[in-house]
């Protein structure tokens, strides 16, 4: 391959873009373990900030993980059967419903949160519990689960599988859990990773829905950025990176494996 100025200018631009992405991540990770950011790395490295973040925000971090798990359970229970019906028996009504289902992805989280607050803000026990935040997260993540599962279900020959199972005498539930669900596993797995990642990072909705007693990880982050020293904000961000990175790597590994089977996982639709 001939490498001329065009190659090197494009390479240059790509590297600049790469630095733009990576430099702040590295800086913030370093700031989180530096004794004094204003003096720089020469002031030494410490884990003090990490422990301080844990003292201050352990509850938010744990709540976030709990909500993400609950959100996963709800989206699995509601989403997988929904995807099945949408793929197996498509109709005009079903398409309309699918549009309604995916609407929470398109409309800003702020609007969604406002609607929830206006409708259920008065129900005090519910408003002040973590279930209120869970509701928002489920609305926002359910479309991703449904789409991810539906994509795999649409690609497999469900009709043949089910006919085969039925001819062997399997009833509907047996067919569903014994044939359909195992065959849709890649989609369910991809959807699950997506749901957990999105739920852990969700801020737009959560900021409006949270109460002082129900703070999640990103709410704590915003709080730390606004009112704590830079090292604490950085250390907190570092904890977030450590939490989210395995999920991200698993997601990309799955996407790579899937793309060979000409399937693409839509990771591109979560909002900021």
């Amino acid at each position, binding site marked *: 391959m001939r490498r001329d100025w065009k190659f090197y200018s*494009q390479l240059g631009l790509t590297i600049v873009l790469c630095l733009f992405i990576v430099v*702040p*991540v590295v800086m913030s990770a370093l700031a989180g373990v530096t004794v004094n950011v204003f003096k720089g790395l020469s002031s030494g490295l410490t884990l003090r900030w990490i422990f301080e973040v844990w003292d201050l925000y352990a509850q938010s971090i744990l709540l976030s993980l709990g909500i993400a798990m609950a959100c996963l359970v709800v989206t699995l229970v509601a989403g997988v059967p929904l995807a099945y019906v949408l793929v197996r028996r498509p109709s005009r009504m079903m398409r309309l419903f699918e549009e309604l289902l995916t609407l929470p992805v398109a409309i800003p989280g702020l609007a969604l949160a406002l609607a929830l607050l206006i409708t259920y803000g008065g129900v005090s026990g519910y408003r002040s519990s973590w279930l209120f935040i869970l509701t928002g997260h489920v609305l926002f993540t359910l479309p991703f689960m449904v789409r991810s599962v539906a994509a795999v279900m*649409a690609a497999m020959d469900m009709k043949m599988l089910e006919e085969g199972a039925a001819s062997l005498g399997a009833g509907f539930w047996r067919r569903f859990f014994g044939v359909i669900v195992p065959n849709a596993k890649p989609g369910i797995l991809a959807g699950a990773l997506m749901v957990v990642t999105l739920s852990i990072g969700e*801020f737009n909705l959560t900021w409006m829905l949270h109460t002082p007693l129900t703070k999640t990880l990103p709410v704590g982050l*915003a709080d730390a950025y606004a009112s704590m020293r830079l090292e604490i904000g950085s250390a907190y961000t570092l904890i977030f990176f450590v939490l989210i990175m395995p999920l991200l790597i698993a997601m990309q590994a799955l996407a790579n494996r899937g793309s060979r089977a000409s399937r693409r996982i839509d990771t*591109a639709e979560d909002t*900021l």
Partner: protein
Amino acid sequence: MSSVEHIKEGRSRPSFPWAFPSSLFGRATPGAGSPAILALLMLPGLIIVAAFFAIPMALVAMRVADGPDGLATYFVILTNDRYLASLIQTLVMSAGVTVTALILCGVCGLFLVRNRFAGRNVITALLTLPLSFPGTVVGFMVIMLAGRQGVIGSVTDALWGEKIVFAYEITGLFVGYLYFSIPRVILAVMASAEKLDPQLEEAARSLGAPTWRVVRDVILPGLMPGLVSSGAICFATAMGAFGTAFTLATDIDVLPMVIYTEFTRNANIAVAAALSIALGAMTWAVLAAVRIFVGNGATSGTGGGA
């Protein structure tokens, strides 16, 4: 032959006493559950969508109409100078982010697919790193880059003795949305670029087409579906996002921030609701238009890229 008998049996569904639910679903196909089972399967999702989305949204819409100005509140975004200015600023910034991200990622994405060199996979992985960063973290990254203690400030301070800081204004927000959009657009560009047929390009070149014509007439049309759908997502995100602006500064006058202040500081619920509905409708319209456009242009993958 008994299994064949069974299949035949499966094909003739028992006729249902109530025709309504079965008419909701599409054509009956062998092996699928009965309408009652399908309805049961849909129930949890249906309840969630109805109780926590459709009804609240309808209530918000009614709440706006009940306000002091009635239905006119919906047009406040156009009649009030401040809201209109913030809408225009949001639109211009979102469009700017979209165009910038598409150009940068178009060039780099194509480059990464076309060339094999040491470190290529690492670069690809690094470029998609922020895929799951929430808006607040993206905002913090901008502060790291262009804030008071940021890299850009330190470098310019060392070079010219002047600190350049632009994190806490609309420029910072622009950079943040670019940061958020790059991984998404680059993935979409690379996915479309892999599907391009290099033979078309060869043919164009062998017919004597200059590079710019190859790009315009062969490469761009091929990349178009990916560019359009990821561009739409960029645009929609920049329109409705809130976390980044919230982290950078609360006085950046973009529409989501305006809605937030109307709701929390001024307790102006009717206006906040009207603005959110307007914002939601605009974003949805952009995504829907793109889906129709791309859906006609290419039948790619999972259907409905946006």
